[in-house]
């Protein structure tokens, strides 16, 4: 933020205005909790705001905590399965919606927006009641099925935006040159959509890893995802090794976020050059 260009363009107001100082303050607000967690994770004194020396023992404790690691593993299984299914279904749906007009299309489209606007708690209870009504036993699989609903919506949303910006004649050209529809889809359309699909998947992945409500309503007795484990620990007592876990998770999701943004940015640059 401190690095400002020497020459200021004429058509822009000055950079040093109160909005800048306010934004700096708000950046501080956004990062304060993260710094606090980082601070505590290396602090030798549990449950204290004062610095009692550097330690890594919370990290070693966290990496030896089987319950947390099992929960992390469950969460990863759920997120990978849900995202894999959503990537396929969401992409197909986005392509289908862009390509066809049919009676009820508007309704179909509105249904795909529902997971984005209905509160998680409402989706969670409906899914639980539905699973109970058709007597499907709760398990890891039911969490995956429920996660696909919102992951699908996010993938489709991002892929749709990308299709809207695409050259519509590319696929036609492929068909005219003798490719069959399947070839045109795989060889022409899919590479064009890849950046959007990947960034949609990464967003869906992070959302799935973060979901507490829907998982806790659709998880069977033995399964415990990471947010569920974190929640139950937060409810009982504040544990210092949670700080270490937070830092590890934050670094991981920060990396995912940056990768996702880079892919999206590259994709856009490529599009501009075309």
């Amino acid at each position: 933020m401190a690095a400002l260009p020497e020459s200021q363009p004429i058509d822009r107001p000055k950079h040093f205005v109160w909005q800048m100082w306010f934004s700096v303050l708000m950046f501080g607000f956004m990062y304060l909790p993260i710094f606090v967690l980082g601070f505590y994770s290396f602090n030798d004194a549990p449950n204290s705001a004062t610095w009692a020396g550097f330690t890594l023992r919370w990290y070693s404790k966290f990496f030896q905590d089987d319950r947390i690691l099992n929960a992390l593993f469950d969460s990863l299984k759920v997120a990978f399965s849900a995202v894999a299914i959503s990537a396929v279904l969401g992409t197909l749906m986005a392509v289908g919606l862009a390509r066809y007009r049919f009676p009820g299309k508007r309704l179909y489209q509105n249904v795909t927006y529902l997971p984005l606007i209905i509160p998680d708690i409402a989706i969670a209870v409906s899914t639980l009641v539905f699973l109970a009504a058709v007597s499907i036993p709760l398990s890891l699989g039911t969490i995956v099925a429920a996660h696909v609903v919102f992951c699908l919506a996010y993938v489709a949303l991002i892929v749709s935006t990308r299709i809207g910006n695409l050259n519509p004649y590319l696929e036609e050209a492929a068909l005219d040159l003798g490719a069959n529809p399947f070839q045109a889809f795989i060889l022409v359309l899919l590479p064009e959509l890849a950046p959007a699909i990947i960034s949609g998947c990464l967003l869906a992945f992070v959302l799935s890893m973060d979901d507490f409500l829907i998982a806790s309503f659709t998880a069977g007795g033995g399964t415990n995802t990471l947010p569920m484990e974190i929640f139950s620990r937060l409810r009982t007592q504040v544990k210092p090794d949670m700080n270490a876990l937070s830092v590890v998770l934050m670094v991981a999701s920060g990396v995912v976020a940056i990768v996702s943004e880079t892919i999206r940015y590259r994709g856009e640059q490529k599009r501009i050059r075309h």
Partner: protein
Amino acid sequence: MPSAKSKDKDRTPAWLVRWLEPLVLLFPAGVWLVLLLVLPTLIIFELSFVPGIRPGDLVIPSGLGNYLRIFEPLTLLVIGRSLLFAIGTTVFCLLLGFPVAYWLGVIAPKRWQNLLLLAFVLPLWTSSLLRSYAWISILRPTGVLNSLLASVGLPSLDLLNQMPAVLIGMTYSLLPYMVLILYASLEKLDRRLLEAAADLGATPAQTFWWVTVPQVLPGLAASSLLVFINALGDFVNPELLGGPSSMTAARLIYNKFLGATPDWGMGSAMSTMLIVMVTLSIALLIKYGDRRATDL
């Protein structure tokens, strides 16, 4: 591709493609959404007419009993509190988010804009539970805030497990969304109009109210709505930061299903109510708001 022409004969018949393709593209996701979203929501709607149902009971819709219970003073208080949190969060996010989005989108050096925006929304990618947990560490009686206050000789603040903590947590969680959407619409701001207004003698305040705000009104409406509906259905922040005094609609629904005394009928009625409130606020935006606002 030289061989492509010769493949012409093996191509799938046109009529099959016409029906098969849309089916392959749209059917799987459609079925998934109908089975796991539409149908369940309808079942919840049906259940909301069953009084006092527990898991395993027979489902016989028999009246509006659950909805009448929503109008009992205690439940109304919970709904009122949820609305208050949602409105308060929206106002705070607007007040805090607008200057940031304005600086990022209009004033900040162009080549830094994307990076700064990414940096601002980066905390959004971290676990929402752990972000609330961080606020517990900050706000609790022996936490960071009170240590700081004590070190400069100020009296300590007891914010945790009170309404202010919930508002802080919700504002923190939703501020990045507000900034993202406002940024998108402020970045498209026509700067020539601002210059024209200034040339014609408008004061900065006049330019802001009569030139800037009308241009970004759709963005303002969309971002406020997004923050409002997310705050209305938020469970994590009130649950972890609010203590027993901050019961909200989402927490009540949770308790009616997974709590000590389950009452699925009542929970379903509350859940239906929540969906209706969200739908209503979106409908209001579409009806009275700018059409462009819903495109975002």
